[in-house]
């Protein structure tokens, strides 16, 4: 139960909040073990469809890496490998230096993911969705879970929506509930699959700020897949460009901007500023 103790300690002293005075309970509770991720020679095919053709990627502890790539290049497949939902044909993934297929891995590390489809549990309310992990793993008593859940909902701008069923929410709201659900797991590593698709520009900014908050205040390691170039450059410490099953460029936002590679420039130049095809 040392998780609980340290979380309570943090909560008492944790008035720092996130600058907007919201969700301080949750931000106080989150703590990160600062893990790095290293992906080595990852390959995956579905039948004749070779999706990942040897991915190598190093993410330092506490770093936020954005993965950019065309639709259908295997970004979601890559994230599903990192969280252990797919088994690679070859290669390995280490998180915090441990192989994710190690039987003991789950005891030491928590990885959470915001799915592209949100993947909320349709038969549970918003509150039950967000609190499910804590409830099933008996981390806290019901009152404390309630607090954390409402704090997490506040952070994503959905306070007071606890008792609503997912089917009543818009796509963007679902995405934010999914984000809250991933946060309360107190992850060492959090994966975002298109966290802002379907959100309006204001909400996109809020999510961008949230990712930056998690990076600056909690120092959670994050891997973000997105099509939103502005968001990518706003949150990223480093960017990786995925094309044809390989990472063709990996570097800081500056490196990427200066990169001469045609495929990279084509991707990061705003589409409507490019000549008409």
């Amino acid at each position: 139960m040392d998780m609980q103790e340290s979380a309570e300690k943090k909560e008492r002293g944790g008035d720092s909040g996130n600058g907007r005075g919201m969700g301080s309970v949750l931000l106080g509770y989150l703590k990160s073990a600062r893990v790095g991720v290293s992906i080595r020679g990852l390959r995956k095919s579905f039948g004749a469809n070779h999706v990942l053709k040897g991915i190598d990627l190093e993410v330092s502890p506490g770093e936020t890496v954005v993965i950019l790539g065309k639709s259908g290049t295997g970004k979601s497949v890559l994230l599903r490998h990192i969280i252990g939902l797919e088994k690679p044909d070859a290669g390995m993934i280490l998180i915090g230096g441990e192989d994710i297929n190690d039987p003991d891995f789950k005891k030491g590390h928590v990885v959470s993911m915001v799915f592209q489809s949100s993947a909320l549990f349709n038969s549970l309310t918003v509150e039950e969705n967000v609190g499910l992990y804590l409830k099933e793993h008996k981390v806290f008593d019901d009152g404390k879970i309630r607090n954390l859940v409402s704090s997490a909902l506040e952070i994503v701008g959905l306070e007071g929506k606890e008792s609503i069923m997912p089917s009543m929410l818009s796509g963007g709201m679902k995405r934010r509930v999914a984000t809250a659900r991933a946060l309360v797991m107190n992850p060492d590593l959090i994966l975002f699959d298109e966290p802002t698709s379907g959100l309006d520009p204001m909400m996109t900014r809020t999510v961008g700020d949230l990712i930056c908050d998690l990076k600056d205040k909690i120092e959670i390691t994050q891997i973000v897949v997105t099509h939103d170039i502005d968001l990518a450059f706003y949150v990223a410490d480093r960017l990786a460009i995925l094309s044809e099953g390989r990472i063709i460029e990996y570097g800081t936002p500056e490196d990427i901007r200066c990169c001469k590679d045609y495929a990279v420039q084509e991707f990061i130049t705003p589409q409507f500023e490019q000549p008409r095809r």
Partner: protein
Amino acid sequence: MNGVMSFFKVTGGLVSLLMETLYWCKAALKNTDKISDQLLVIGYQTLPVGALIALFSGGVLALQAGPTLARLGIEENVGGLVGLSLVKELGPVMASILIAGRVGSAMTAELASMSVYEEIDALKTMDINPVRYLVMPRFIATVLALPVLVIYMDVIGWFGGAVVSAINPEVQLSFSVYYRNLADLVDFTAFCNGLIKAGIFGVIISIVCCYVGLKTKGGPREIGTAVTKAVVLSFVLVLVFDYYVTRILLFFGLD
């Protein structure tokens, strides 16, 4: 060749899901809320229809057998005939078909949509075992509910038979004669026979329906196909196993 492969694949999948579910039954006491939710749904969905089916099945048995027995001058045996047929065969089979059609289909639809919409994946990322969280409560609830539903349908079916025997002018059997004969012939072993069958059918239906649901991939169309597949497979397996279970029970003198 493909068919043979998929036969072994499905059989293996069913057996291993059954084993895993049995393993997770150790967590049953901590999940009584989920089990009772499922029981409530099963009861709500099957008790009214079950009464109707049972009443008329008992009635039609009496209607068919009554005049024949009356012509032979042994019409008082209608009670035993209706009683035994229901307890040993019709009760368990009818209740199973009802549960597979109403409850099993809903289980498959729910789990299939959870698979298709990545909810099962989300559960896994939260380190919540889908078999423990989803299959085990449905399994236990079905295995508990089916024998109870069988007793309920037996009793109502007997009553249906009694009413038809009483009002049928060719038979005109009084309730007391009907029920005395029924009580003479339906003994405890016959009763157990039906309940054992019901429990086994409960295992088959819940495991088949959960398995098909969990294995569903694709989109909304596949959810529909999965439901049909699960219900048909449940019916077939229930009827096939009915024969073998009966043989085994006969072998052990439980008839």
